[in-house]
């Protein structure tokens, strides 16, 4: 292993350091040690999580990228080389955490939003009403009314169950197991405060969270962990997980060392065993089987809850989405290839799938072409980073977006990409009690709430500048988007005009 140079370099400024030892205690990766009356860093262990930097009272720590002498080889980069060396050393699959980090073009950043000038008025969001409320669920094509005995009109159509969101942002599926119980609690509390949903992921729901049932989406994945009657009924909607953007076509795997007593109870499996969720649901090998599972879940919950389906954005996503909607899904979540993950084989994460922007645009268009867009709400996932991304996603056709990584960052995550190690220095992606307690659920919930409230303000500003006062008027309104530095084909697929083109 000596041949693999470290990624980062930790320098301690001894002139500033008061030798309090805080950093040593805080490093959950074992990169800092006391010796010779000074702090000695082991560069090879540092993951640049910045826990020590943020805790050091003297600002004495600096983390830099370990500088490889530039051999000028753009093909055999340090990363490629060290990956080969790691595999040569150990065999096996390269694993990583978080989403695709590669410098691919991000389409969101090439979409520009319109604003009103002169010919139509913009609206002042601070003083005028501005609506973000969104309902997830199947909508009928039309409503029917009857006249009652008194000659008044009454609604004859019985609407399918709908879930109300006060902000068009829900928290992504992150299982208890992949993240800590405190993280799950924070997400649930914030969802309640902000009027949205947290998603349990596939690891069941801890009893402490049952009280948040109105703000919970429970997930049913191939492993069926913790899926029982109570679970299915302690939520406002159910999601069947088919795929995840970070690893389309690949299952999940929670290593046994993360499976302690509480997780074992929640997932209903013995402690210490590997938790395997293979890629396919073994009762879904075809589209009509998906329909069968959707209706099985509805049957088990008395048709009271919307049932959604999450798929990853793959080449044929539009046709698949159409099939999923026709199979009876009330909500469709599409997860793009930059979506996050607690652990994903690097080769899949970085090479499989398509950008969410293209997937969303083509799915929305396909469902409209087929006249079935009303039958399901669309949730757009896979690296939503800001309110601007949300506005653009909504304009391309999403009903709401899903945030995973952004929510973790709000709670303190520094995107060190080491979630799979179970050593998360911020108490998020870990089950070690001493680390978990670093995350205070109340504080983290407040931060999440603040983030959503900030984004809501910004969204309202955007709506106001567009001269509309409800998110519905932006939803699918691609006329208010323009593309910049995008090629013809991409513009065509996005269904938008180039910047510079007027009406």
């Amino acid at each position, binding site marked *: 292993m000596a041949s693999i140079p470290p990624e980062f370099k930790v320098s301690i400024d001894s002139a500033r350091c008061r030798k309090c030892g805080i950093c040593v205690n805080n490093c959950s990766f074992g990169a800092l040690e006391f010796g010779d009356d000074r702090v000695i860093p082991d560069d090879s262990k540092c993951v640049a999580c910045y826990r020590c930097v943020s805790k050091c009272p003297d600002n004495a720590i600096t983390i830099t990228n370990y500088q490889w002498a530039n051999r000028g080889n753009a093909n055999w980069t340090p990363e490629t080389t060290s990956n080969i060396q790691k595999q040569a050393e150990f065999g096996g699959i390269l694993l990583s955490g978080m989403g695709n980090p590669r410098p691919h073009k991000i389409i969101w950043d090439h979409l520009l939003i319109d604003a009103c000038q002169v010919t139509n008025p913009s609206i002042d969001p601070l003083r005028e009403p501005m609506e973000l409320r969104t309902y997830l669920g199947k909508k009928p094509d039309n409503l029917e009314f009857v006249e009652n005995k008194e000659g008044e009109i009454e609604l004859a159509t019985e609407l399918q169950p709908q879930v109300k969101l006060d902000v068009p942002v829900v928290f992504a599926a992150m299982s208890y197991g992949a993240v800590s119980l405190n993280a799950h609690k924070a997400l649930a509390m914030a969802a309640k405060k902000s009027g949205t949903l947290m998603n349990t992921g596939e690891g069941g729901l801890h009893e402490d969270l049952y009280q948040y049932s109105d703000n919970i989406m429970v997930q049913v994945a191939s492993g069926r962990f913790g899926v029982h009657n109570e679970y299915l009924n302690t939520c406002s909607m159910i999601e069947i997980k088919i795929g995840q953007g970070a690893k389309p076509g690949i299952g999940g795997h929670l290593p046994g060392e993360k499976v302690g007593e509480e997780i074992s109870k929640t997932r209903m499996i013995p402690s210490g065993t590997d938790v395997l969720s293979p890629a396919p649901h073994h009762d879904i090998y*075809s*589209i*009509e089987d998906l*329909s069968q599972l959707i209706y099985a879940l509805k049957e088990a919950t008395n048709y009271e809850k919307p049932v959604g389906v999450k798929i990853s954005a793959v080449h044929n996503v539009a*046709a698949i989405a159409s*099939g999923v909607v*026709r199979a009876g899904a009330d909500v469709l979540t599409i997860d793009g290839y930059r979506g996050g993950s607690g652990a994903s084989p690097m080769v899949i994460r970085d090479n499989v799938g398509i950008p969410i922007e293209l997937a969303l645009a083509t799915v929305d268009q396909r469902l409209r*072409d087929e006249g079935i867009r009303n039958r399901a709400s669309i949730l757009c996932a896979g690296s939503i980073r800001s309110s601007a991304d949300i506005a653009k996603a909504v304009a391309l056709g999403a009903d709401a977006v899903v945030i995973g990584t952004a929510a973790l960052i709000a709670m303190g995550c520094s995107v060190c990409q080491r979630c799979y190690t179970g050593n998360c220095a911020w108490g998020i992606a870990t089950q070690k009690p001493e680390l978990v307690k670093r995350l205070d659920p109340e504080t983290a919930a407040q931060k999440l709430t603040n983030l959503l409230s900030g984004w809501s303000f910004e969204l309202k500003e955007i709506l106001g500048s567009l001269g509309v006062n409800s998110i519905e008027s932006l939803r699918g309104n691609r006329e208010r988007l323009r593309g910049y530095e995008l090629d013809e084909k991409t513009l065509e697929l996005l269904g938008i005009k180039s910047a510079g083109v007027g009406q």
Partner: protein
Amino acid sequence: MKSSCYIPSGCSISAMMSESGKRIDGRAITKSIALMHDRSNGLGGGFAAYGIYPRYAEQYAFHMMFNSFEAKGVFENYLKDHFYIVHDEEIPTRPGAVYEEDTSGINIEYGMNPITESPVLWRYFVDVPGNRTQFVSESEYVFEKVMEINSKIEGAFVASSGKNMGIFKGLGYPEDIAAFYNLDEYKAYIWTAHGRFPTNTPGWWGGAHPFGLLDWSIVHNGEISSYGINKRYLEPFGYRMELKTDTEVVAYMFDLLVRRHNIPIKTAISALSAPFWKNIDKMPERERKIITAIRQVYGSALLNGPYSIVLGHSRGIVGFNDRIKLRPMTCARKDNMLYMSSEESAIREIEPNPDTVWSPKAGTPVIGELYEEVE
């Protein structure tokens, strides 16, 4: 109008055969597929029937779909140039027809789905002129013409082209398609049926199953993940994939391997649903040599992905699954009858007391063969 996008689909299938050649009307097969209504979504249903044209048993029966009467005219000129037309007529249909029998498979409250619109549907019974088959066999000649019609004549599509058989299909639930085509008035010794759950609107009738070529017909449940290479493998042999559905490649694959390469059906299936190397290595010498060669030569013909398939041809039916059995199939026998279906209940709906019921092993075909002549 031919859809330009690839259409994955799920489905239900059902098939029945009288191995003694007794001809049965279309009510039973309709009842069977109707029970599995919820496995399809109204975007395609169809039937293949063998033995339905005893009067024209020696002629190739072309079941045609036309976009317009103009396309029909162009097609008829073509047909006259290449064949003797012994007889032709409109395929009788009942627009607005809907399946009305009671079944536990359908929720009536959802409303009926009558079939009101259709392309122009016509059938032609034709002979191949003797002087055209000096250098190619008759079947090869018909094959070439079918490919040419489907790819070159705008708005014309050959739904089936075998002798004494026909494919009846369209947009709708299969049981309604049966009512539309009056299938209770046809008698066949083999019936196969298909209810489709495509993942988009195909928008045209030719995309429904069964898919047929000469006397082959295929009904298929599942998806063929290897479609891309199967298609590219077939193209140089003159096959044109006009439908963009994976089912089409299955029919062509049988045509290529069995009719043109003369491989016995069972062996052909060991190319399409090939045994794993692990099992091949354990086979006795002779068999191992054959299957190894098959996999070496016909690697591109391997159908990979989840599927169950029923192949129909004039002498019988063959049902088989993918290599790891990812799609369901149940078979049953009663006297001289052989049944195959996605669900056992669909068989019991028409034969409550079968002699035997079993589900075939992955990759092991179930074969029904005519052992008497058709009545």
